[in-house]
């Protein structure tokens, strides 16, 4: 007897449908799985056998052959347990099989027949929807994640018995979920952040710089001694970034679903991510990969912030890996058995000390580093990587008087300004295939970053007297564009450019080191 159950498998960030075919014939009792199953799939036969028995069904003492089609793509993960079990029950006529092929089935079984939650439910449900199936059977705990997608009926089940009951038409207790909440239509999610800009006392200049960074999606480098609040303020950057759109949320939730990092019962992720990898991270941890490919930190920071504390402590080869994703907003991992592309559109925020002892440039303390040491420290960040960091800011230690001062602008107010600036950019670049000022190419810069006469004179003077490098030129223009956007102006004025010229601190460093 033959039965067919539909399920899904993950490839990169996408999911595709898999046919689980079960054939039961006479012969010596055996249970074989073919169709490139991974270890977790191969082991499922033990779980399925126990679960069927413990849920008071009969496990056939016959020759069972199981095929996972398409048979040329490797399949992994324990979520094939439930479709395999249903396939066996259908093939032995312990349950009706007439409506079985209208649904996809996902779920991991425990030995007693209960169903455990699995990773990657969201992309699987999307694939189910695209293939035009009627519904999807998911573990009870993955119900919220599955319910996000419209147009597909999601059925949450607790046990193998529940699943069988559903196909018999006897299952009445499906989980009730609030779709609006899950799809983040209700706007109550801003309170979910655990910090606010108003908690950061003093550091007005740094806050302004980060506001510009958020508005133009510029990468930032903060240079300052330990204890100046770099980490504290970096953690709060997501609070001033614009709220995520539904599409962004969906994409991010897919990534977290596959990485197994999603918290249950919350549906789509509404908070922009803040990833904070330690500098001992490996290359695979940073960009993704592995034998079973998993997204790395840069993909987990998609639509959010990747914070690299103490940037020079990161191995240089890890930092160089970031160059291409920063440009392309995605990373392609090519391995012997798969080539996978993960999205990686993140804002990079770095922090570092001015030198190893922390006092270089401080007029009131003697720096004990030799010039060679300072140069070595700075050279950890290569020129090409530095090119991709538009804003560089030096941060001073906080003064005690600042700590007692009044609280300043809160995140909501800044966020509003950032959102307005982003809107201006979206409007301006709607035909250019870019979204932010940081993405401006030289050609587009000529078109959109025009300076008026006084601006041109200022730029010329600044170049001469500040000894700016050529690469500083485009960075300053991009930043000036964002400052003008924050000001709500279509043209870049002299004052915007003058402000932008202050955020080129690293150039000052190099100049000081040259002799």
């Amino acid at each position: 007897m033959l039965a067919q159950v539909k399920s899904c498998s993950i490839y990169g960030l996408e999911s595709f449908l898999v046919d689980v075919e079960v054939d039961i014939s006479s012969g010596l009792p055996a249970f074989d799985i073919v169709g490139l199953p991974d270890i977790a799939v191969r082991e499922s036969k033990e779980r399925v056998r126990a679960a069927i028995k413990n849920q008071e069904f009969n496990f056939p003492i016959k020759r069972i052959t199981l095929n996972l089609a398409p048979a040329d793509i490797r399949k992994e993960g324990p979520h094939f347990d439930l479709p395999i079990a249903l396939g066996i029950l259908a093939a032995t006529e312990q349950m009706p099989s007439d409506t079985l092929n209208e649904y996809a089935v996902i779920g991991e079984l425990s030995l007693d027949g209960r169903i455990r939650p699995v990773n990657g439910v969201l992309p699987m449900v999307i694939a189910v929807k695209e293939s035009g199936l009627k519904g999807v059977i998911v573990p009870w705990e993955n119900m919220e994640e599955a319910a996000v997608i419209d147009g597909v009926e999601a059925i949450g089940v607790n046990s193998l018995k529940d699943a069988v009951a559903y196909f018999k038409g006897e299952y009445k207790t499906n989980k009730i979920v609030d779709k609006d909440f899950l799809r983040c239509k209700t706007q109550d999610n801003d309170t979910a952040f655990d910090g606010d800009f108003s908690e950061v006392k003093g550091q007005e200049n740094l806050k302004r710089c980060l506001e510009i960074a958020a508005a133009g999606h510029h990468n930032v480098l903060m240079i300052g001694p330990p204890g100046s609040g770099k980490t504290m303020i970096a953690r709060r950057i997501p609070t001033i970034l614009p709220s995520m759109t539904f599409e962004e949320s969906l994409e991010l939730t897919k990534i977290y679903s596959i990485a197994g990092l999603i918290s249950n019962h919350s549906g789509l992720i509404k908070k922009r991510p803040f990833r904070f990898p330690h500098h001992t991270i490996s290359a695979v941890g940073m960009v993704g990969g592995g034998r079973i490919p998993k997204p790395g930190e840069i993909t987990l920071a998609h639509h959010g912030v990747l914070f690299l504390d103490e940037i020079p402590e990161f191995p240089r080869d890890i930092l160089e890996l970031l160059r291409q994703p920063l440009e392309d907003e995605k990373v392609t991992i090519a391995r012997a058995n798969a080539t996978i592309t993960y999205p990686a559109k993140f804002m990079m925020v770095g922090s570092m000390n001015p030198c190893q002892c922390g006092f270089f440039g401080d007029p009131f303390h003697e720096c004990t580093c030799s010039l060679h040491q300072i140069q070595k420290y700075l050279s950890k960040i290569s020129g090409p990587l530095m090119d991709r960091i538009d804003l560089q800011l030096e941060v001073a230690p906080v003064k005690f008087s600042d700590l007692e001062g009044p609280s300043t602008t809160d995140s909501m107010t800044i966020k509003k300004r950032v959102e307005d600036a982003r809107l201006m950019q979206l409007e301006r670049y709607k035909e250019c295939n870019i979204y932010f000022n940081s993405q401006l190419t030289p050609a587009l810069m000529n078109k959109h970053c025009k300076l008026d006469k006084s601006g041109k004179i200022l730029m010329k003077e600044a170049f001469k007297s500040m000894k700016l490098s050529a690469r500083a030129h485009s960075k300053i223009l991009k930043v000036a564009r964002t400052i003008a956007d924050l000001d709500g102006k279509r043209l870049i004025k002299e004052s915007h450019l003058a402000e932008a010229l202050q955020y080129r601190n690293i150039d000052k460093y190099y100049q000081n080191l040259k002799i």
Partner: protein
Amino acid sequence: MADNALLIALNAIPKLGSIKIQSLAEEFKCYDDFLKAKPEDLLEIPGIGKIICEKIIEYRKKVDPNREIERANQLGIKIVTLLDKEYPELLKQIYDPPPVLYTKGEIAFLHNKSIAIVGSRKASAYGKNVAMKFAKELASLTINIVSGMARGIDSFAHKGAIDAGGPTTAVFGCGIDIIYPPENISLMKEILKCGCVISSFPLGTPPQAVNFPARNRIISGLSLGTLVVEAAEKSGSLITADFSLEQGREVFAIPGSIFNPYSRGTHKLIKQGAKLVESIDDILDELYLESPKNSNTNTADSVNLQNLSETEKSILEVIDYQPIQIEQIINLSLRNSQEVNAVLTCLELKGCISALPGGYFVRN
């Protein structure tokens, strides 16, 4: 007196100082005599002990002065010894003048009146400005600026002189064919265009720490006086100043902030009696040199101040001659950071303030 070959040969023997070389040179007159000398003859010379005698005998076979001269010629290096007319007069007067100078560039400048400008390798923005300004002004009076081409103040002193197109001399603490620090290769080329570089060390001598005090005595010995711009409490620049005093030359020191660790050394010198210098006139007066008539450089600044807008003036009031961090400027000026940043750029371009690393600003 001896011949050049003998001096070059003696100069190349390690452990032989200028004084011993002089006594040896007086004894032997010419190189061939020296080669033939027996150990007993050497031991008779005052100051030559057993160990040094063995050294001399060991090395005199290895050292070939004619080959050294040939190599120098190939590299475009001119060798000047105490016997030559080109040997700088002032340097000859010191207690232990180096017997041999390897030179590159126009050495006629060595007969100009010279001032040494030295200081710490890690210079502050203030020290950098001072070194450039003084070197430029002095060099434009055709005063030769002598320094060590080290990092920091030394390099800025040379730069200032080059800006004025005036003479400058770099004294090396290594063989003249070695460029140290290596990043100064372009600076050296600039120096050669309007001045010269010299070294008392044989070709190929690496830049070892022991060489530098010997180099410092040449820097001070070439000059009428030594100007110390910035120096930490224990600094090579103070050694140069000491040599200068021993050689009977003047020592000048630039005052700085009492908070600046790199001003400790110069303040120490002032306490010990070095002349406090505010402008080149202070130096010229002390050396009885004529000063140019219109050296009033402060007029430009006052004109600039009148061109400022009200906002610019109010922010400039907050910024002092003591470095101040931008966060403090924002706090004290009671303006928001975007306005302050924009105004700071304008003030910077108008030359009223300088930006320093660390987000600090200082009034010029």
